[in-house]
């Protein structure tokens, strides 16, 4: 032992052998700094798009040109900020139950796409984006409707906020429910 320490003076100290030459403490310090950096900076949220097709279409022509004998049914669904829904002015419950009421208005058999009842979704101005997206998702369970989001002309003003859905402006935002992305779950 004593002989070894004399031949390798830089690595063996006074007869006590050491396994590592460089102290681990520096490595640990550095690794901790990297770890903290990555923990703070990384995000785990996975973003996903909700496709919307916006069109400039007058509400009066939404139902399309209609022959005399065929009349497309138009339903007005109002979303209120408290999370409750009104169908043509009638209270139909919250996000959990309203689709059940709407399901009764679906045509019994598969109709041609252009003749499906038109469901105009008019959120109040103070409805949150989250509620609107949840509503659109809940409406996916009802393939018997053509669904359009409409907004009131005076949507930005408090006075127009609670106006009845008849005061919708001449444009529409279409929740593109049949987009491949949304069905890609």
């Amino acid at each position, binding site marked *: 032992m004593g002989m070894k320490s004399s031949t390798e003076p830089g690595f063996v100290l006074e007869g006590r052998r050491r396994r590592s030459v460089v102290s681990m403490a520096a490595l640990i310090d550095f690794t901790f700094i990297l770890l903290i950096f990555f923990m703070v900076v990384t995000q785990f949220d996975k973003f996903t*798009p909700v496709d919307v097709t916006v069109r400039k279409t007058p509400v009066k022509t939404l139902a399309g040109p209609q022959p005399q004998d065929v009349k497309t049914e138009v339903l007005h669904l109002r979303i209120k900020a408290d999370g409750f829904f009104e169908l043509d002015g009638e209270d139909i419950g919250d996000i959990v139950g309203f689709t059940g009421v709407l399901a009764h208005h679906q045509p019994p058999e598969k109709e041609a796409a252009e003749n499906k009842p038109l469901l105009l979704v008019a959120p109040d101005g103070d409805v949150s984006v989250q509620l609107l997206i949840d509503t659109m998702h809940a409406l996916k369970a009802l393939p018997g409707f053509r669904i359009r989001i409409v*907004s009131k002309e005076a949507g930005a003003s408090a006075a127009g906020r609670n106006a009845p859905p008849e005061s919708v402006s001449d444009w529409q935002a279409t929740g593109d429910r049949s987009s491949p992305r949304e069905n890609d779950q």
Partner: protein
Amino acid sequence: MNDPFGSNADLFDHKREPDRNDRLIPMINIVFLLLTFFMIAGTFHAAELLEVEPPEAESGGKLPDEGPVVLIDRAGTMAMGDERLDRETVVQRLKAMAGDSAVAVRVKADRATEVRFVLPLLKALADAGITRVQLIAVRRK
């Protein structure tokens, strides 16, 4: 003479006194594992001008990387890139950009933002001839 292996004991040194560093090795292992996990599993995103917490949605698609992003925070303030802008300016700029590409405009609104701040923007985009819009959401867990 007490050591039956003589000088070979250097090679199979089981009776060596534990080094102070030896106790740290399991910790270093764990820290390296954590570090590797965060490096691989996490993603980086550019810092944004407004504090926006997107709504949750069920859809499972992947958000494309390209396209302009309009931020709307819960007070209705809009921003694009590193500037706060009003609605008219946002639409003007998007209209100028839309000329050369068909990518969707991405709207990143806070989940608590009222739709009266969002729908008028969509209306203005429709008026400007921009029809493809994507609302950015977070995949529901």
